[in-house]
């Protein structure tokens, strides 16, 4: 039953770094296209060109949802645009079967001077609906967008969230076979986001979906498989959880960590033992930092984050009647956490030092160190007790 709707074979695309040269190459490509010489024969990179997407292959059946993850500039959007037929691949082949819907440029074609109501007709036509079809679903669109009296106001007076709402309401009525979604689900307020997720869930059975997102939770919830693009190459294709783990494992911890410190405080170092919890749920932590003054009764906290960056638990010294006196200059503090009952997986620690009132940070180093848990605990929640 489930037929293959998307088939991508060794697709590559090159881009040019320099605008002037890019335009000139465009002229050349135009010329060779018109002379019937295929642009694709020109396989080598010209000066200032690079592969924006290199050698990507995959297939997708109806009912499957592929999550596309990777850093900014990894080639995700370029791949989507090729799938959407907007630009041609320089190498390889793309086969798409059925109506393609794209939740990419929501509200493209909106004229700012016209009202939301008037724009619905234009935008829906651009997306491929006939006037008759639009008449039929018009009320549903207005209802879904839920803009109240704004629907009769010019679109230029809309907030960006409202524009996206209207755009999404229109685009989501398309009944596509293939749906391409590029980082749009996360805009809009919470009730609207819930609406979007419901709609996506509804469409999932009927379509092949490709979702670009930086929200790993979203990918985990929705997708049946993921593709990881890194430096324009396909680095991983397969199971969702595995893909996300892989993505997290090679993204450098230093790039995720950031710190907020009060003046004069310098964070030096943190060490944990063990780095992988296997037997006892115990961990020794040693922190080194410098302080400009002597401060009595400081509190130390270690928020624990899961691999998606959500705080799932926190160790706080005041809960254990531990208060520290910070010396001027070099300080080393050792802490032992005893019952770290976590599910198997990877986690991060954040280190926070604050005065007793707890109202401000002296030092706050976000995601300063990673550790793994393999004590055999499984379950829905990260925190098991």
């Amino acid at each position, binding site marked *: 039953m489930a037929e293959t709707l998307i088939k991508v074979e060794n697709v590559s695309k090159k*881009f040019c770094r320099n605008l002037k040269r*890019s*335009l000139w190459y*465009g002229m050349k490509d*135009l010329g060779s*296209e018109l002379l019937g010489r295929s642009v694709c024969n020109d396989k080598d990179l010209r000066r200032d060109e690079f592969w*924006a997407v290199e050698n990507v292959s995959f297939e997708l059946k109806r009912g499957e949802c592929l999550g596309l993850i990777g850093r900014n500039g990894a080639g995700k959007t370029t791949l989507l645009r090729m799938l*959407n037929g907007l630009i041609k691949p320089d190498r390889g082949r793309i086969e798409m079967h059925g109506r393609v819907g794209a939740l990419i440029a929501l509200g493209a074609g909106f004229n700012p001077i016209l009202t939301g109501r008037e724009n619905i007709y234009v935008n829906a036509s651009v997306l491929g609906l006939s006037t008759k079809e639009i008449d039929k679903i018009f009320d549903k669109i207005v209802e879904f967008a839920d803009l109240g009296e704004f629907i009769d106001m010019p679109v230029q007076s809309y907030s960006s969230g409202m524009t996206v709402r209207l755009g999404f309401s229109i685009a989501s009525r398309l009944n596509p076979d293939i749906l391409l979604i590029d980082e749009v689900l996360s805009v809009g307020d919470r009730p609207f986001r819930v609406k979007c997720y419901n709609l996506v869930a509804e469409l999932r059975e009927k379509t092949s979906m490709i979702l670009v997102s930086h929200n790993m939770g979203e990918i985990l919830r929705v997708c049946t498989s993921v593709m990881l693009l890194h430096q324009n190459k396909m680095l991983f294709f397969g199971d969702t959880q595995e893909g996300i783990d892989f993505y997290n494992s090679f993204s450098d911890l230093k790039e995720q960590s950031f710190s907020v410190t009060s003046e004069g405080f310098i964070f030096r170092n943190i060490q944990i033992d063990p780095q992988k919890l296997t037997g006892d749920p115990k961990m020794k932590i040693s922190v080194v930092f410098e302080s400009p003054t002597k401060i009595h009764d400081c509190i130390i906290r270690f928020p624990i984050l899961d691999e998606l960056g959500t705080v799932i638990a926190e160790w706080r010294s005041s809960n254990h009647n531990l208060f520290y006196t910070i010396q001027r200059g070099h300080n080393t503090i050792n802490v032992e956490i005893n019952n770290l009952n976590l599910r198997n997986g990877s986690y991060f620690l954040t280190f926070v030092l604050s005065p007793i009132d707890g109202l401000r940070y002296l030092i706050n180093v976000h995601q300063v160190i990673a550790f793994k848990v393999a004590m055999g605990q499984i379950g829905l929640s990260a925190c098991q007790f």
Partner: protein
Amino acid sequence: MLKAMFRDLIAGRELAWQLAVRDIRAQYRQTVLGLIWAFILPLANTLTWIFLSRSGIVSISDTELPYPVYVFTGTMIWAIFMDAVNAPLQKTLAAKQMLAKINFQREAIVVSGIYQTLFNGAIKIMILIGTLLFFGIYPDWGLICLPMGIISLILAGTSLGLLLTPVGMLYTDIGKSLPLLMQFLMYLTPVVFPMPTSTLTAVIYKFNPLTPLILSTRNWLTGFTPVYLSYFFIVNALVIALLLVVWVLYRAAMPILIERLSA
């Protein structure tokens, strides 16, 4: 290829209509003068030339029509042609964001431009006819052929505009030099001057493919019998052939242009 082109053209007809309605609405909503903008430019042009000829700064040989009527009809018809030339590049540039992100029938943009030109052209024609009646010039049965003249002008303008669009999308030089080019072209066509008699200019005027289009349209409008009728049909055949060629070019160019515009 041709089949796909016509299929897209037909599939995009509703979209073209919607786009045209959108643009026409938006065009007039943000103005105070409204419809006056449709003919204010040719009117200014006419007044300039009437002034120039009355004051004797330029001497213009006699026309069969009263000169003011000759200039006014000429510049109005020329304005329709110019609208048609400008439309493809202007519309395609305006739709850049849409083109870069949504896959739809690209023909719809060009067709919506034609619709808009037709709409603005209709306003001009109504004003023209009103003016003619005021001057006591009564069109005859030739008026039935007028739409043919207008449509030929618009098709010719569209082919020319569409020809420039692919390169014009890449380099803004085209869009910037277009008004200059059109100004020059206007003086090579019997718009404000009657057909000249001196040898060299007469040859240029005669072979200018726009001459029969402008003259025939004007003749139909003012109740004269067109003189260059056979040339008119030859030009039309050429225009249709050119239109097909530039249409193919436009289609082929689109993916390349989109890639360069938003890379």
